[in-house]
C-alpha cells in the first residue's frame, strides 16, 4: 500500500533494477557512433545496484510500519500489564467487599428468620386466646339459654331469649374482629422489624416499608372441600362479618366486662379502637 508515487519507467511500469540492466541502446547512425558501450554498461550496473538497495530498504521500512501499526491496533489503548501489586490490591479489595455483602446477607437471613418465627408464635398465641374466649362466650350463651329456657317454661316471653342471643352474637363478632385486629397489629410489628432488616442490607432504600392491605377474609369456596368434615364453627373461620360488622366504639363498650378485661391482656382497648378506625378508612 505504497502512497508515494513511483517515477514512471518503461510504459509506465515501475522501473526495476532488471529494466536498467537489460536495456539496449540502438545506434543512431554510422557516422556518429553512440555512447561508449563500456561506460554506459558500467553506469547501468551502478543504477541497478542503487535501485536494488533502495527497494530493499523501502520494503524493510514498510514492514516496520506495518508491525508498529499492528501493535497499535491489537493492543489498543492497553497499557503494559498491571503490576502484581495492583492485582493484589484489587483482589484484596474485592474480597473485603464480598465479605461485607456475605455478612450483611447472613445477618438479614438470621434476623428475618427470627422475626418471622416471633410473628408466627404471636399469631398462634393470639389465635389460641381468641379461640378460648369465643369458646367461653359460646358456653356462656348456652348456659344462659338453658337457664332462660327453663325460666321460659313458666314465663311466656321469648324476647329475652333472642335479645341475649343477639348480644352474644355481637360479642362473638366483636371477638372475631378483635382477633383480626391482633393479627393486623402483629403484622405491622413484624413489618417494622423487617424494615430494620432491610436497612441493614447495603443498598436497601431507607424508606418505610409500606403496610400491605389485609387480605379480605372471605371463605374460598374453591373446589372440593376438605376431605375432613368442616371443623366446628368455634374456630372462627374468617367471616365476611370482618369487614361489615366490625364493632364500633359503642359495640365494644357494650361488651361483657369479662371480655374487655381479657382483651386488655393483649392490647389496650384504645389501641384496638384505633386499629378498627384505621381499617375502616
Amino acid at each position: 500500500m505504497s502512497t508515494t508515487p513511483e517515477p514512471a519507467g518503461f510504459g509506465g511500469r515501475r522501473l526495476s533494477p532488471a529494466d536498467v540492466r537489460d536495456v539496449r541502446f540502438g545506434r543512431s547512425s554510422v557516422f556518429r557512433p553512440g555512447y561508449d558501450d563500456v561506460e554506459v554498461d558500467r553506469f547501468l550496473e551502478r543504477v541497478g545496484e542503487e535501485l536494488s538497495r533502495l527497494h530493499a530498504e523501502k520494503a524493510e521500512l514498510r514492514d516496520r510500519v506495518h508491525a508498529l501499526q499492528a501493535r497499535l491496533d491489537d493492543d489498543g489503548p492497553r497499557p503494559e500489564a498491571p503490576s502484581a501489586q495492583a492485582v493484589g490490591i484489587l483482589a484484596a479489595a474485592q474480597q473485603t467487599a464480598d465479605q461485607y455483602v456475605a455478612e450483611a446477607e447472613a445477618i438479614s437471613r438470621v434476623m428475618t428468620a427470627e422475626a418471622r418465627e416471633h410473628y408466627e408464635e404471636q399469631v398462634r398465641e393470639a389465635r389460641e386466646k381468641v379461640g378460648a374466649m369465643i369458646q367461653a362466650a359460646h358456653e356462656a350463651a348456652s348456659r344462659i339459654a338453658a337457664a332462660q329456657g327453663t325460666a321460659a317454661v313458666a314465663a311466656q316471653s321469648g324476647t329475652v331469649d333472642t335479645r341475649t342471643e343477639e348480644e352474644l352474637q355481637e360479642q362473638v363478632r366483636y371477638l372475631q374482629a378483635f382477633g383480626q385486629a391482633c393479627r393486623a397489629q402483629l403484622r405491622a410489628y413484624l413489618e417494622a422489624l423487617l424494615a430494620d432488616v432491610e436497612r441493614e442490607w447495603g443498598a436497601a432504600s431507607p424508606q418505610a416499608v409500606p403496610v400491605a392491605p389485609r387480605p379480605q377474609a372471605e371463605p374460598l369456596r374453591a373446589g372440593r372441600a376438605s376431605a375432613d368434615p368442616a371443623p366446628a364453627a368455634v374456630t372462627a373461620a374468617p367471616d365476611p362479618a370482618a369487614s361489615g360488622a366490625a364493632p364500633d366504639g359503642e359495640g365494644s363498650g357494650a361488651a361483657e366486662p369479662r371480655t374487655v378485661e381479657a382483651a386488655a391482656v393483649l392490647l389496650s382497648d384504645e389501641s384496638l379502637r384505633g386499629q378498627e378506625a384505621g381499617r375502616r378508612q
Partner: protein
Amino acid sequence: MRANFAKAAAAGDEAPLWFYAHLFLTHPETRQLFPVSMAHQRDRLFAALGEVVARVDDLDSLVPILQQLGRDHRKFGTVTEHYPAVGASLLATLEHFDEEWDEALAADWTAAYELVASVMVQAADEMSDQPPWWDAEVVAHERRTVDTAVLRLRSKVPLPYRPGESISLETELRPRLWRYYSPANAFRPDGELEIHARAQPGGPVSTALVRQVHVGDVLRLGPPVDHMRFDPDSDRDLLLVAGGTGLAPLKAIVDHVARNGAQRRVDLFVGVRLEEDLYDREDLTRLAQDNPWLTVTVAVSEDEHTQFAHGDVGEVVARSGPWGSREAYVAGPPAMVDDTVGRLRQQGLPEERIRTEVFAPSRPGPDVHGEVTT
C-alpha cells in the same frame, strides 16, 4: 493443559480472584458486567473452565454447552469485544500460577480459548434477531402477605415464552444478579406478565422484589428456560400440585388451558403452611368459580382447625386420588416436590407423566449444562 489448569485450580479462590483483578485492571469497562459481590461468580468461572478443560477432547459434548453459555451471556451485556480481554487475562492467570509456563503451553491455551470464544460468539450472533434482554415495567405491585408479593410487568417488546417456563430477571436495585421466576400467566401479545415473588431470608433479589420494587420501576428479563417441560399439545387431564410460589407456573398452565378451549379437566392443589400464606386466594376463587373444568383444593399443613383440607399437600392429593390417568405437574419447595412425586408414583402414575420444578431459596443462573440451579 490439564496439568497446568490443575495448578491454577489448586490455588482455590486465589486464581479466579487474581483473574478478575487482572481483567478489571486491564479492561475497567468490564467491571460493570458483574455484580457487586463476586464470590459466587468466582466459583462459577472455574467450574465452567473445569468443565471445558475436562471435555476439551470431546467437542461433541463441549460445543452445545458453549453455545448455551454464549447465548446466555447476551443478557449480561457481553459483546464480542469482551472475549479477547477475557482470554488475555485468563492466559495471564494460568501463567501466574504455573512456574513451568512456556511458549508451547501459551500457544495451546490461546488456540483452545479462541475456539471456545468463537463458538460462544457465533451462538450469540445467531440469536441477534432477539434482543439480548427485555425491559419490563412494573405496572402493579401488591404485597399479599408479610413476605410475598405479586407483580405485574409489561415488557415493551413482548417476550415469547410457553406456559411453565421460567424467565430470569434483574432489578437495578441489585445489579447483575439474575434470578429465575415463572410467569403465572400464559403468553400475552401485550407483553403482560404476572410474577410471584417470595422474600427469602437474606435473599438480595427476592427481598428487593417484594419490599422495594415500585410501580414504574423497570426490570430486565432474560430469555425463557424450560424446566417444567409442559406439553401444550397433550389432551390428557391434568393434576397440578403447587407449594408456595410454585403456584406461578401452574397458574400459567391453567391460563393456557382456559385460553385453548378448556378441553382438559384440571385439578389444582395448592399447599400452604397457614391459611394466611394463601397469597393468591382471590384469583384462585375467581378461577374456580369461572371455570367448571377446574377444581381448586387448598391444603393447609400447620393449622388443624383450618376450613380447608388439613395436611401436607402431597398427602391431600393422595387421598383425593386416584390420579393414575392424569398428567401431573408439581412445583414447589424440594421436600414438597419429593413427597408429592413419591406418593403419585405409589398410586401408579407413570414416571414420564410426572414433571416437576423445584423452587429453592436461591436460584442463580443456569450452570454450564444450562440447568437452573435447584
